[in-house]
């Protein structure tokens, strides 16, 4: 239907890169070059990317702050894990995996929809508190479950899966998440979602069904969080509720924020980097040095926040960034602009980084839709 020249290849760049990386590691893994710790790391990275991309839909594109993403993941992990435990002896390895992925995803999506309902009435900080409470409630429900149902505080033991293949499946899930998220965002529905983020009152007045789209985003986002949870349960052999605490939700949020809100590629890179750092630091810093891990992690965050926001570093930033370097070799030519080539994922940040991290910074970005503006006529 479409002519080749209307297909914007750079829209598909991130699929290609992720697919290429997956293929590379798949070959390495099947030829036996990868150690089990590498495979573990890759699984963790894939799970983190799935989480970050799905959260970025809520935070970056819908513009609502959700602090309960780990809660959806928790639901997926427990229910998917339990399904796997029950079905494993009956169905065998592969069908069990597929069914449990679906069960985990769908149940999490249903809860996402339920959480989406108050999201229609609450805004900003209030919604953040509701989602935060939701995550904690989910966690404590599973923690206090009986030993027979979900393992209680000891955790739920889940079936094993061939480790050579599991990370490949995890990356296929990353590709699926990417495809759904980007196709949704780069369509008329995505336009409606970003319209709600940019100006909810105008979106309503333009006839956009705000209720429908908020529910849709929450549902799709938690579906993928649920799938990430199921993958987590397969990757760890055991699901423990302590993992899905408030801190983990924040960690996912930090991935999205570091990547630049509304920037899917950024979220992917940030998720991979943070997870890599996390796992590597865990192995390097052992014993008494383990306390340093949080410190280094925090330092990186602070440096990044200050670097991105400090007014005195502005000229330095503008001079030395990748875009400026590229432009030095390939001068920008506005007449070459084709029809509507502007990016879909231009950074919006209704939620500012310093707000999220509670850092007090003087200057904010020039594009900050006023929060107070929502109340007036």
């Amino acid at each position, binding site marked *: *239907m479409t002519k080749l020249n209307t297909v914007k290849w750079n829209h598909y760049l991130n699929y290609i890169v992720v697919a290429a990386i997956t293929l590379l590691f798949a070959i390495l893994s099947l030829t036996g070059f990868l150690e089990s710790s590498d495979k573990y790391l890759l699984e963790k990275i894939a799970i983190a990317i799935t989480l970050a991309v799905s959260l970025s839909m809520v935070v970056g594109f819908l513009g609502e702050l959700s602090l309960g993403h780990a809660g959806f993941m928790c639901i997926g992990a427990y229910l998917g894990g339990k399904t796997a435990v029950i079905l494993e002896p009956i169905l065998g390895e592969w069908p069990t995996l597929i069914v449990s992925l679906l069960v985990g995803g769908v149940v999490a999506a249903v809860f996402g929809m339920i959480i989406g309902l108050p999201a229609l009435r609450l805004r900003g900080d209030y919604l953040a508190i509701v989602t935060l409470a939701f995550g904690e409630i989910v966690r404590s429900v599973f923690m206090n479950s009986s030993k027979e149902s979900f393992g209680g505080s000891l955790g739920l033991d889940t079936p094993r899966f061939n480790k050579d293949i599991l990370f490949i499946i995890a990356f296929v899930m990353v590709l699926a998440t990417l*495809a759904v998220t980007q196709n949704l965002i780069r*369509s008329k529905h995505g336009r409606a979602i970003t319209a709600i983020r*940019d*100006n909810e009152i105008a979106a309503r*007045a333009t*006839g956009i069904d705000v209720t429908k789209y908020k529910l849709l985003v929450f549902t799709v986002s938690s579906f993928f969080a649920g799938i990430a949870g199921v993958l987590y349960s397969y990757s760890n052999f055991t699901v423990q509720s302590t993992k899905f605490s408030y801190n983990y939700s924040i960690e996912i949020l930090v991935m999205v924020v570091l990547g630049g809100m509304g920037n899917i590629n950024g979220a992917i890179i940030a998720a991979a980097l943070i997870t890599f750092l996390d796992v590597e630091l865990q192995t390097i810093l052992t014993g008494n040095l383990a306390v340093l891990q949080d410190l280094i992690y925090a330092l990186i965050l602070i440096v990044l926040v200050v670097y991105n926001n400090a007014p005195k570093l502005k000229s330095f930033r503008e001079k030395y960034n990748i875009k400026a370097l590229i432009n030095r070799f390939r001068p920008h030519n506005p007449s070459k602009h084709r029809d*509507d080539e*502007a990016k879909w994922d231009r950074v919006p940040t209704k939620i500012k980084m310093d707000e999220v991290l509670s850092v007090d910074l003087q200057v904010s970005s020039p594009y900050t839709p006023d929060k107070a503006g929502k109340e007036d006529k």
Partner: protein
Amino acid sequence: MSKVVLKTENLGISFGGLKAVQNLNLEIKEKQLYGLVGPNGAGKTTVFNMITGVYKPTTGKFWLDGEDLTGKGQETINHRGIARTFQNIRLFNNMTVVRNVMVGLHNQPEYKCGVLTSIFRLPKHFKIEKAMRERAKEILDIVGLLDERNSLSCNLPYGKQRKLEIARALATNPKLLCLDEPAAGMNPHETEDLMSIVRRIRDEYGVTILLIEHDMKFVSGLCDEITVLNFGTSLVQGPPEVALNDPEVIKAYIGG
């Protein structure tokens, strides 16, 4: 006599003890250019907010094409055919100009396309995207923003942002287009230009237009009929040259 598009009967709203608008009776006929004028705080924007569903009227009712829309939500009212612009511009700032208009086209039946169609990138998705873009360009051409279609809407100058708001409202294919101070902040040249755009919209699209404006030259040059509001009640209704010269109206504006 031509058809009545918007009819309000005893429309009123109070906020606590404050009666912002009372007993407003309007009858706007098809293809009419209707003006709503009055001093600051007279309740003009409140009237807009009531007929577009932002506020629910406390008394009275209003009908669009004979359909009672009192108390309906903003989305529903927009789907039925009332579109508006805002006094303080409300564009989708992080989107390009053409996409702003495409958001306006979102609910048109000819561009209907399910979420799954978009996610799985069925051929229909591409067809509709293309059709929407072409249509958006046509609408942008009317308000004279075609050349700026790929710039971000927040980078447009003020006057053009106002025109873009009109284009976006027009994209929802309204029967009644409500313009809230469309000429505010424009220089005389831009105002002239805007007048011809508003006339064109009325003539080519057959849209009935209700507008709030302080620029009396704009109002008297454009409107067929006006209502003067003061303290939430209508003072005079009639053709602009008659209504604006009414002693009551002059008193309301100048005082004394």
